[in-house]
């Protein structure tokens, strides 16, 4: 393993740790990725939403979550048409502008736009660019077997990049690292649900998101240190509304927008970066590791508008999320031009109407810089709930 790539947070008090995470997250030169490469490491970039990072990790490479950034799509704009979400353009921009250099890029058939990325990327770069075909028929009895084969195909492609064979034991070790990471993230979300005054939505987001650009062992180190500090934080509950934020499964709202929401709400649960928390339980370490990963993807997983599973109607899953988190209301958003997100909004709002749960509907874009209007509207919504 390479030397640590994110050290700025170490030996600092909580507020400074959170500050360092935010700073690193918003640095569009991606210092952690650059440090990894400068130390001779290789990078596999993967687009949203879920990616089995364990396979890349086991090969000694750094999986990096490619999820756009607040950059201007100077070169990428000419590669795309007009009616597209921002994340697509800024993700390509990160590569074209060499802010993130990589040895391989993987996208997924999550939506009509994203599945084009392997072709677009492949025409612009000489390194391998491909689609990982995660199953869209989660209800087929053969889906896990198929996905196991697909993961094996990915493993062979990764082995070519790393120059080494990835054995079952290496995979098991990586699964153990990621199991710990998922457990720590579950703990963070338990704090959000149970004592949301201890950590704001933007702070929690920064703690989660930084994991997408650093080795997962380092993320575990960070969370192991930070979570006890959060629990011991001297903070008291405030008069805020408990909300679930929905709509952040792919393109991410700007951190400042999340901060604006946190000023009037406790975000007790959300689908932000849901791919990092997609698998809900530990993946077994015994047996065939690729099969275990495949089964976990299908059988022990969360939900999102870009995975079809008859067992998981999204609006019912949202209602469950609201109930489980004890939320009073929901913020239903979608990234601009996000087809699946916008389509799901209709089902969500109708289900919330039926259940009598108040909700706030909005759209966002990762590059937006003004939140005044949205914040005023949200404050009005919150006041209506608090003083009704």
């Amino acid at each position, binding site marked *: 393993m390479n030397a640590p790539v994110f050290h700025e947070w170490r030996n600092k008090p909580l507020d400074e740790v959170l500050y360092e995470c935010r700073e690193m997250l918003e640095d569009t030169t991606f210092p952690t990725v650059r440090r990894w490469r400068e130390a001779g490491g290789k990078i596999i970039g993967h687009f949203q939403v879920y990616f089995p990072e364990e396979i890349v990790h086991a090969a000694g490479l750094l999986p990096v979550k490619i999820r756009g950034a607040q950059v201007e799509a100077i070169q990428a704009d000419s590669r795309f*048409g007009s009616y597209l979400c921002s994340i697509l353009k800024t993700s390509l921009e990160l590569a074209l502008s060499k802010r993130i250099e990589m040895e391989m890029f993987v996208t997924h058939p999550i939506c009509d736009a994203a599945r084009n990325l392997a072709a677009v990327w492949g025409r612009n770069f000489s390194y391998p660019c491909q689609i990982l075909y995660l199953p869209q028929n989660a209800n087929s009895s053969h889906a896990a077997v198929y996905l196991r084969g697909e993961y094996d195909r990915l493993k062979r492609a990764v082995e070519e990049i790393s120059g080494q064979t990835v054995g079952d034991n290496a995979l098991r070790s990586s699964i153990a690292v990621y199991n710990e990471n998922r457990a720590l993230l579950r703990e963070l979300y338990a704090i959000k649900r149970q004592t949301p005054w201890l950590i704001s939505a933007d702070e929690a987001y920064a703690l989660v998101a930084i994991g997408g650009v650093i080795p997962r062992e380092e993320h575990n180190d960070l969370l192991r240190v930070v979570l006890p500090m959060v629990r011991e934080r001297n903070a008291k509950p405030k008069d805020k509304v408990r909300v679930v934020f929905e709509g952040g499964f792919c393109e991410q709202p700007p951190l400042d927008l999340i901060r604006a929401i946190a000023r009037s709400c406790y975000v007790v649960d959300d689908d932000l970066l849901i791919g990092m928390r997609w698998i809900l339980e530990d993946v077994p370490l015994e047996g065939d590791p690729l099969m275990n990963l495949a089964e976990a993807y299908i059988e022990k997983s969360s939900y999102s508008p870009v995975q079809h599973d*008859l067992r998981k109607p999204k609006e019912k899953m949202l209602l469950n999320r609201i109930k489980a988190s004890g939320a009073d209301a929901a913020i239903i958003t979608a990234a601009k031009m996000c087809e699946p997100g916008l389509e799901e909004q209709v089902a969500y709002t109708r289900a919330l109407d039926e259940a009598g749960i108040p909700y706030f509907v909005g759209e966002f874009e990762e590059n937006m810089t003004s939140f005044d209007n949205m914040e005023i509207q949200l404050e009005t919504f919150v006041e209506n709930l608090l003083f009704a």
Partner: protein
Amino acid sequence: MDEQQTATIVGRGHDEGARLFREWFEGLNASAERGDPAAYVFVMGSMAELLRVFDLPVVFPEINSLQTAIRRVAHEYLNQAEDYGYSPDICGYVKADVAVQLRGGVHPMGLIPKPAIAVLTNACNTYIKWAEIWERMYGVPVFTLDIPGTRAAGTQTWPGDRDFKNDCDYVAAQIKELISLCEKVTGKKFDIDKLREAMHHANAMSRGWKRVLELNTNRPSLFNAVTDGTIYLGVSNAFRGAEEGAKYFDDLVEEMEYKAAHGIGTLVDEKHRLIFVGVPCYPIFRRFNELFSEWGGTFVNSTYLWFAAGGANRGFEYDLARPLESLAEGTLISVRDAMDSMFYQDQALAEMIEPFHVDGVVYHPIKSCRTVSTGLADNRRALMASRDIASLFIESDMMDRRVVSEAQLKNRVDAFFEGLESRRLAASR
């Protein structure tokens, strides 16, 4: 040339296609009035061969939606769906269909039956979101036939390869699950001989479709890939696996071969041979084509005729001795090809330039369809970098006239042709 024979054959594909299409809609109307169960399917991987075994009439909501645009009433349907809550920024086909459903199936071509089952592939992700709407509206079973596509340009796998086997086994398993579901929905037992018969007709149609497309290398071109082609495409989808469909394509091949033999082109004075990339502009369908034909331009091929035919352009023919295995293979290869025609079409376009004597490539990305449109600007950039070929990039929509500006389109098209004629003049010096 025998004038009587010419009058009988030339234009037959157009007239017969229109007749079959009218009859097909009449059949759907009758089914709806009787309350018969119907299968909602999509053009990329309709599985019509299999659904015919269960006597399920197939409804193509994409075709229903585009018909509202051609009949210039799409805006009424779009507005209704937007009032219901759907965003102006999502697929217009979805919204028009939502409005059809909200109206109890009332459509300009007749009454559309309600679904008893929805069968879709992942060739377009919006298919999946769309079917979820019917699932919520009607509580009908939705079957997503997941077809793994090409992972990277030029890396398609074929029988004998372990990755192909992994994909094909997955498709085969799903087909068996679909059969069980159809048995449950219809109460009818699966009949493999009936499937074999439908596959036999589908083979004739695929063979014919491939041949028809190839014949348009002829100069002058025998049909316009955007206007005439769309009629042929409608039959290819609505009658896939049916005897009438097979006969139609046999006759169409005969017509095109006759026209080729006698030098009968689609335009009297063909000046510019073009390829169309994208989805047609249905709100001004006729006028859109006139913008090109007035300059002597004709579309000799179109990626639309590849992907919207579910990849039938490949001409895959099933092995009737092992129908289920072959259905899985053929579905995988054909639907994968349809997806390739949307994502990785640059190489195929480059390879068509000489045999089809192409003067220019017209890219038409649309607001409604990100599947087709997302990569077109980059595709064009790559094609222009590799080949010295003129191209035009115009954006509008397949449904929503609010984003179709005829005057702007005309300006761009006129400038494109002026450029083409200048190139030709310069080349002749």
